[in-house]
Each structure stands twice: as structure tokens, then as C-alpha cells.
């Protein structure tokens, strides 16, 4: 397994905790609204020729909460500062679910910040058809199970979420839920102005990945991003839900690697 480490970076006025592993050009990874679950197979696969930089979102337990961040646009602005101050730009990004929203806000305000943008089941735009699952009136256990199509047959799901939840895990999930609610409660996990601002993004190669059995983010969100970002490519993965990276790690990493190599 690739070596990785966790370090605290003083950047953008924050003590940002970041997981770092692999070799090669930096690849920014933005974890989803449930928090960073740990180093998985897909991390290992991508880290063979890329240095993965995975910031742990402020307010999610390890990186202290930043009081001034009150929306996904604020959070995107924060990460923009991080990327610029760390002189990473333009950088490739892979962003999951709610962090797809963050990445979209980042690129909308600075269209040159990403060299490639991969959004995996991204929230952030209101779908014409379907609804983004309201994750807040769900207990964490129910929500976790909803994220994958077949929990009992997804080995890495069992590895990270199986067994009795420890008090520390429970607290970490509650931190993640609270911070997500704080910035994404209303309008629920989308920004009505984002689709207009994204129309200024013309040259950022964009890949949208979506599991065909996704019970959290409907296909309508992918369609909305396609409308907003002309030329965005789509890869749909059959029989997986909201977590293609662990439900079909091989297909997921192939799609990402192929796109980033392009």
C-alpha cells in the first residue's frame, strides 16, 4: 500500500489538516459530506503516479471550524485561497458529492484554477427531474446504507462502516452532518446562481461520474452540470450507487485515470 501521512498546513488563515500520499503531480481530492473515510483501494490506485492531497474540511472534527464559512460559496473561496497559497494552480481535482458543489463554486469564481475537474455524483445544482436526497432527517446509519446500492456486497463499505459505531465515529459523523447543515441547509445543497456562473467555465476539461443506482444524487444533477458546463463528459457506472469509488473501484479509477491523462 502507498505510504500516506496526515499533516497540518497553515494556510488561508487556517490550520488545515491534510492527508498526503503517493508520488507525481498533485491531485486535489475533496471528500464528501460524510467526511474522509480513510485511505481506500481507489486512493492507492491513483496514488501510483499522483500525489494525492486530501484536505479535511474545516468543521469536520480535525480541521477547526471557520466561523466565517456560511455557504458552499464561502467554502469554495476558502479552498481557492488554499490552492493559490500552496501554489498548486492549476491543479487536477476529484470532488465527491457535496464537494462537487464546492469544486463547482471554485471553478465558477476562478475558471483557471483546475486543469481537470472530476465531479463524482455532484450536488450543487437543482435538478429539473428528481431531488437531491434530504440527508438531514436521516440517522447516520440509515444515510450510510443509502449511499451504496448493495451495502452487504460492498466489501470496502463493510470495512469502513461495518460493526458497531464507536463513540468517536458517532461524534465525527455528527460533526460532519452539523457542518454540512450549517453551510448547505438552505437552499438545500444547491446554489441557484451557480448554474449561471458556471457558464463562464469554457476551458476546464470536466468529467462527471455517476452511479446508475445512486439514491442520493439524481441523474438530473448530472444533466444540470452538462447544461452549465459545455463539453462536460459523463461516465455512468452500472449497478452502483452514490459511492462508485468503493462500489466499483476498478471502473472508477480507470475512468478517472483515462480522463486525467487526456
Amino acid at each position, binding site marked *: 500500500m502507498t505510504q500516506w501521512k496526515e499533516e497540518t498546513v497553515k494556510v488561508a488563515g487556517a490550520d488545515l489538516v491534510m492527508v498526503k500520499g503517493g508520488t507525481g503531480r498533485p491531485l486535489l481530492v475533496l471528500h464528501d459530506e460524510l467526511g474522509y473515510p480513510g485511505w481506500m483501494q481507489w486512493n492507492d490506485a491513483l496514488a501510483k503516479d499522483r500525489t494525492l492531497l486530501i484536505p479535511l474540511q474545516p468543521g469536520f472534527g480535525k480541521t477547526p471550524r471557520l466561523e466565517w464559512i456560511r455557504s458552499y460559496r464561502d467554502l469554495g473561496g476558502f479552498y481557492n485561497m488554499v490552492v493559490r497559497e500552496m501554489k498548486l494552480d492549476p491543479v487536477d481535482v476529484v470532488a465527491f458529492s457535496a464537494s462537487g458543489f464546492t469544486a463547482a463554486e471554485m471553478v465558477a469564481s476562478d475558471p483557471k484554477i483546475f486543469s481537470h475537474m472530476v465531479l463524482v455524483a455532484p450536488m450543487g445544482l437543482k435538478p429539473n427531474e428528481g431531488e437531491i436526497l434530504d440527508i*438531514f*432527517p*436521516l*440517522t447516520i*446509519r*440509515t444515510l450510510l*446504507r443509502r449511499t451504496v446500492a448493495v451495502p452487504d456486497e460492498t466489501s470496502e463499505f463493510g470495512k469502513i462502516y461495518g460493526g458497531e459505531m464507536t*463513540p*468517536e465515529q*458517532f*461524534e465525527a459523523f*455528527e460533526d460532519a*452532518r*452539523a*457542518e*454540512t*447543515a*450549517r453551510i448547505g*441547509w*438552505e437552499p438545500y445543497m444547491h446554489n441557484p446562481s451557480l448554474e449561471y456562473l458556471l457558464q463562464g467555465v469554457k476551458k476546464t476539461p470536466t468529467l462527471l461520474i455517476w452511479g446508475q443506482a445512486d439514491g442520493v444524487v439524481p441523474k438530473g444533477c448530472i444533466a444540470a452540470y452538462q447544461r452549465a458546463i459545455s463539453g462536460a463528459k459523463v461516465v455512468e457506472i452500472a449497478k452502483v450507487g452514490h459511492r462508485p469509488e468503493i462500489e466499483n473501484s476498478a471502473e472508477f479509477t480507470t475512468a478517472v485515470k483515462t480522463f486525467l491523462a487526456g
Partner: protein
Amino acid sequence: MKVGYFTERPYRWVPEEALFENHAFFAVSNKYFDRDKGADDYNYFLDEACYAEDLGFDAVALNEHHGTPFCMGGVMNVEAAILARITKKVKIVLVGNPLPVIKHPLRMAEELAEIDLISRGRLVAGWVRGAGSEQFFNNANPAYNREMFNEAHDFIVQAWTRPGPWRYEGKHFHYRHVNPWALPYQKPYPQMWIPGVLSPETVKWCAEHRYPYVGLGTAIGPTCDLWDIYDDEAAKHGYQAGSENFGYLIPTFLAETEEKAQELGKGFIYGGGQTAFSRPEHTLPPGYNSKSAIRMLAKQPGGSWLGVSQTKLHMAQEDPETAEQEYQEIRRKLSESYKKAQKGMQIIVGTPKTVIPKVKTLPQVLRPGIFIFFHIQGPVSNADRMTSMRLMANEVVPVLRDYAKELGLADPYERTPGEARAYAGAQRLPVVDREPLATLGLV
């Protein structure tokens, strides 16, 4: 002592199975709401409040819940405004307005000022954060609940005391022209009594503001602990807490016979009782509880906290469909919890003769200056409700008043909360008497 009367004004006509299927009161479909029955009940409950006044209660208390048949008080200020006009003497106690849920403190300042004026100074304002489920119902961001509560309260106090017009730009509320024309009848503003269900943060906030804290039928042992927290905090702010700083509300149901009382009292657990007000996923919205509260819940396997046990949390991930045979099991468990609640003195049921000693224990231990009877829930007839009230008022309340006098329990109108100074270095005086708890097996 101020003796108050309170009822949730339950909608009594939802089939029990509908509550079982839903596993809670919150989120039961409003297809079960019958407009004629609703109209009858709203009018009846207003009459009942007048009856409470006629019977000699000092106060009628109202509360507010949303999206549930558990309590018909969706907008209690409407009821309070009517009572302000149709009653003559009773204090109208609001326990309380859910500030973060309503999200409009300027409007609140105006509404309450009108009620206080119409009643010629009989309003007691009270504030709550709103139940977890109500954050969903009203789309109030739970992660900002505590902040919004504090900011709204501070704003209302300013709106009632600072001559306008002035501009307000806070974190959550923004007003460019604050100048409410009607100000409360009471100067500078009505008393505020703060109800709660064992949140140390709320108790400390009350002590800091010198507001009476009213325990909502909370378990007696932990309530004693909270009174101590209040008293410690009061000492930090330079005063000695006393009975004027505390209130207690207890579900109490009476009938002419023990059997009848027991039958009526089951209404308290109708559809699962208070603890089944909402399901865990609605009770614990993200960010609603403090870090310390979450840590406490995480570390209590099998334990219960705010009506949510680990078992219930686990159950919440199961398919909510409930089969008929499970109803029997639910009923059996509810029946057990009914007995347990009586044993733990969380509800008091019986004839005046059996109820009086229990009711007297509460002021003996908790020494509150405010005592509020929380009346029957569930599908009980109007006639039985009124009989229970009559027995309560004619036979129990006089004994309680005499006993409170004997114990020297001053209420917040007799002695202003926070006026008893504590001197630097002096040890604070006890506010509770735990001695009877051991005899009652409540330690």
C-alpha cells in the same frame, strides 16, 4: 407559589394505529385532520382555559408544536391573544415561543406586546429552541439554533427597551427600521420563564439572565442536579437562587376512583407518550445539540437521552413498516412505561387522596416557586377532563398552596428572581432537599 394549569391541547382523534405505523406523532399525515373536530377542540380548549381561571388557578400555560397531533398549539400566540381578551385574572404563560423556528423576532416583539396590552399586563413570555422535528417542519437550520435563540432573545429585549427607530444588523437577523409602536403593558417588559428538558446550557443561560427555569416533567434526580447548576451559576453572577428562580411542570390526572384515573392517565402514553413525540432521525437534527450533549449520547450504549436511546437509534434504520402483531408488543411496552413513569414520579395519577402526598413531595424536594399541572393527553372526553380539573383545583391545589406557604416558597412576583444578593466568599445556600429521594427510591 404560583399554581398554573397547562395542557398540550391534543388532537384526540387520530387512530392509534396511524401513530404506531408512523412510529411517532411528528410526520403523521394531516389526512387524519378533521376540520369539524378541530374547530370544536380549539373552542373547547379556550373554554377549558377559562374554566381553569374560574377554578382559581393563577395561570394558564400554553405551548407550541408544529406538524403534530400531539399539540394543537401551532401558533399559540393566537390562542394567547384570545385568552388575553376573554380571561380576567390569570397570568397567560407561554412555555414558550420557539424563537429559532419562528425566525422573526421583531414580529414576535410586536405580537407579545399586543397580547400583554390586551391582557393589561398578564403575559409571561417564555422562550424555547423548538423541538428537533420542528427545525425540519419550519426549515430552521439546526446548526444555528442556539445562536439564533440567543440573538433573537437579545433583540426582543432591545426592541422593548430601546427607543426607536434604530437599525439592527446582526448575524442572523437584519432590520433596517426597528420601532415597534406598541410596547408591552408591563414595564420594562413581561417576566420570562424558560422551560427546559435537562439542558445544562439552557439552565446556565437562565441563571445568567436571572430568569426562572421551569423543568418540564423532568426526572427528579437530574432536576435536582440542574437546580444546583443554576445555583452555582447564580453565585457566579452575585446572587442567591431561591424558589423564585424555579418552576416545575408535572403531568397529573385525577378521577373519582383509582381505576378511572388509571384509565384516563393512559392518554399520556397515547401513541407512545412524549418520548414518541418524534423519531430519532427527527429528534436529533444535525448541529442541534451541543458537542457535549452529542458526546454524552455517543457514550451511553443502551442508555437514554432526551427520549432517544441507542436502541431507538438502531431501530431507526429499520424498515418503518409495522405489522399488526407488533402493535400488541408496542402496547405492552407502553403499558410498562406508563407504570414506570408513575413509579418514577414523572406522572401522577389517582384520586385526590392518593395524588396529594405525591404532589407534596415535589415542592419538598425541588422547592419551586412555580408549579404547573400538565393535564391529560390523549383521547379523553371533555367531561372527564373537567372532572379531573375540578378535583385538582378543589382538593389538591389548596393543600399544595398551604404546603408551599409552610415551606416558604416565594414565587417570582413575590420576590424578584436575582434580587437576593450573594456575597463574595459566602457559600451558596442549597436550593433542593434530596433527602426524600432515597425513601422514594428515586436516587
